[in-house]
């Protein structure tokens, strides 16, 4: 092994999402001489971004004041909000809670918006490197974070260099910003190493799945924002759908459900498809076609689960820290605020120390505090949660109590003694037929000749304990059918179709034994989302 090549920057940002790009833009606006680089594992900027997305424009106004004259490629003002409570065939309109009133907000494709932001960052001379994955942290001699190590390329399945082998370089920087999104694999390691979560509750997550459709002319009502709750979820599973009407006969439809669900046989992907089969939705999509699809985990822990966001040499911002506002179902404005705040702090002090305090005194955390009890209120079922949410909303979170947040991996019930709810799921006819058909629309690609990026720490458990206790829930919670149990000469074994992976991180979160470790594959691998 030769010495790795080194590139030096003042600030290295990991992940080109709204948090990282806002941070990069703000840094160069304040200090044009700073050397700032952003690295991104997707093959191009925006290709791993998946969000609804209705966004609040206030941080954009702050960051790029002239943006309304040169808006992102998909940017439709919200005209109307609707919330529906669904039963299998029926529906009931619910009043729109204040957090979900979207007047003044915009429906965007967050992927397209990130690509648009990257252009603005490049115009300010930020170096942006899509297709390069930060595989590891580079620590300095005193143990603080001093940059990242880019993953090697051209490594074979067996871990040996292939003909095209290229050693990853080290990027050295006094400040590293982790904006990897939810459950970032480096953030996860650093949170553990520096015990950043020792004073907070565990993080809790949801899985979001989304499809972008082109529908029959007239079916899309640009600017209409619809949300649904109820069918097909039982009252003990938190979740619902979003239906955002875009221009050019396009509709973005998605489904989110809490990863603290209890039923080991539950399949989030099928729940999404069942929801699409509801007459109200079916009518909208019938005769249309899917343009793109994918999935991504969502951080739902909010205030109680927010870890410390600073450590020697590095900051964690945006969804890597978990700043999404659950009742608003919005994280973009929060992520952007984090990015701006981090940039302002670095520009002022040239250091990371003191950022966590500033973040906790900022609007980011104030907003999370107000709604802190809403998500955990739903642990006791939909209706009790609904009532508590209403109380918390009316009192703007001023009641003194704070409900605690639980981890998702422990929520799954063992098969023995558990009676799953009768879901009454039906045959359906809209595409995609199954998860493999869906993955096709994610255009996900991984060179098959590379080490498996989904590491099973104790493979024996899969074919022994897990079969009996949970019937291998990974074969159901993964929205891309990466995990399959197959019969082989040595008995029934886990097969990992890692090339299907859409980088949603659900397996790393929901596995009840916590033996699945998601690490980054070769840079440029993964989904190639279009306008997601």
């Amino acid at each position, binding site marked *: 092994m030769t010495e790795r*090549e080194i*590139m030096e920057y003042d600030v290295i940002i990991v992940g080109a999402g709204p948090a990282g790009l806002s941070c990069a833009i703000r840094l160069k606006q304040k200090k044009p001489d700073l050397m700032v680089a952003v690295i991104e594992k997707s*093959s191009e900027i925006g290709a791993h971004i998946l969000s609804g997305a209705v966004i609040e424009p206030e941080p954009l106004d702050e960051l790029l004041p002239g943006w309304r004259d040169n808006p992102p490629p998909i940017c439709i003002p919200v005209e109307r909000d609707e919330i529906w409570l669904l039963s299998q065939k029926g529906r009931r309109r619910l009043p729109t809670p204040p957090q979900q009133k979207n007047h003044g907000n915009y429906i965007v494709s967050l*992927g*397209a918006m990130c690509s648009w932001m990257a252009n603005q960052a490049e115009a300010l001379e930020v170096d942006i490197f899509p297709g390069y994955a930060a595989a590891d942290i580079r620590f300095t001699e005193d143990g603080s974070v001093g940059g990242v190590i880019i993953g090697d390329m051209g490594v074979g399945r067996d871990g040996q260099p292939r003909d095209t082998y290229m050693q990853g*370089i080290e990027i050295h920087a006094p400040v590293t910003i982790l904006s990897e999104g939810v459950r970032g694999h480096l953030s996860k390691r650093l949170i553990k190493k520096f015990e950043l979560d020792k004073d907070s509750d565990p993080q809790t997550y949801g899985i979001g799945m989304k499809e972008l459709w082109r529908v029959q002319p007239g079916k899309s009502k640009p600017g209409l924002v619809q949300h649904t709750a109820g069918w097909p979820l039982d009252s003990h599973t938190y979740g619902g759908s979003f239906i955002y009407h875009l221009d050019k006969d396009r509709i973005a439809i998605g489904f989110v459900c809490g990863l603290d669900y209890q039923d080991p046989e539950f399949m989030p992907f099928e729940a999404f498809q069942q929801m699409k089969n509801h007459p109200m939705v079916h009518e909208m999509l019938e005769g249309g076609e899917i343009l793109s699809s994918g999935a991504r985990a969502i951080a739902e822990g909010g205030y109680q689960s927010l870890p410390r966001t600073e450590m020697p040499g590095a900051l964690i911002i945006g969804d890597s820290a978990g700043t999404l506002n659950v009742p608003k179902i919005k994280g973009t404005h929060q992520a952007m605020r984090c990015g701006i705040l981090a940039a302002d702090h670095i520009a002022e002090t040239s250091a990371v120390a003191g950022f966590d305090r500033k973040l906790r005194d900022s609007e980011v955390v104030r907003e999370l505090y107000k709604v802190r009890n809403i998500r955990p209120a739903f642990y006791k079922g939909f209706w009790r949660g609904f009532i508590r949410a209403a109380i918390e909303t009316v009192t703007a979170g001023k009641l003194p109590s704070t409900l605690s947040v639980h981890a998702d991996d422990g929520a799954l019930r063992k098969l023995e003694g558990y009676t799953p709810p009768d879901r009454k799921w039906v045959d359906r006819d809209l595409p995609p037929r199954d998860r493999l058909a869906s993955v096709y629309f994610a*255009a996900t690609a991984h060179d098959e000749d590379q080490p498996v990026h989904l590491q099973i720490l104790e493979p024996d458990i899969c074919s022994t304990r897990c079969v009996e206790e949970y019937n291998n829930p990974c074969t159901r919670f993964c929205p891309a059918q990466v995990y399959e149990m197959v019969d082989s000469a040595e008995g029934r074994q886990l097969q990992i179709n890692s090339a299907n992976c859409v980088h949603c991180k659900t397996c790393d979160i929901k596995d009840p034994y916590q033996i699945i470790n998601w690490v980054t594959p070769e840079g440029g691998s993964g989904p*190639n989302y279009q306008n997601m």
Partner: protein
Amino acid sequence: MKILVGIKRVVDYNVRVRVLNDGSGVDTDGVKMSVNPFDEIALEEALRIREAGNAEEVIVVSAGGDECQQQLRTGLAMGADRAIQIQTSEALQPLSLARALLKVIEREDPGLVILGKQAIDDDNSQTGQMLAALWDRPQATFASKMVLNGNSATVTREVDAGLETIEVDLPAVVTVDLRMNEPRFVKLPDIMKAKRKPLDVIPLAELGVAVEGNLNVHHFAPPPQRAKGIMVEDTAQLVQELKNRGLI
């Protein structure tokens, strides 16, 4: 010796191509664009020849709007020494492109021109052949192996019957096939270096090449959707169903 390599900006091979509703073309809105994979292989071969000491300079050339500079920069980051953009807002058909490339050849006087055997967007596989004819030089198409020996090259071609080995005098046009090599990954610092490498922009008009449309595209349509299948119980039912449909 100089080597000239042609590269084309195309819709990335991972993208699910979608035909526009009005049938006027394919949807490129928000679509990832890349260097045509065959051209990437052509460039890799040129770089290997230079690295073996058999060439001094590798020049990448592309025709298109300023957006194709992105692909030229990728070529420079892979290791090309300089780039030329033949600037035009029109999509050039193979004959016009071959004529434009010939003008660049006249300016640069390369000892070898390497192109991809076809572009993955229109699949024409014509430019290399036309260029060789216009230039009045030998051509070796669908190459999977090339060995330079002074003033000639021994080229292995992939043909229907298997492999065919021919020898061509240089300068020549070689178009490459998939098995020629596996292109390298771009090193991160090389992306930075590529930003400083020369990229000349030559308007198409300056080359004195007229844009001709010898081909007219009428419309695009997606392949017909497969009808829903049925499950049959046994062979007898299968035979019956096929008979019912008049297939046997």
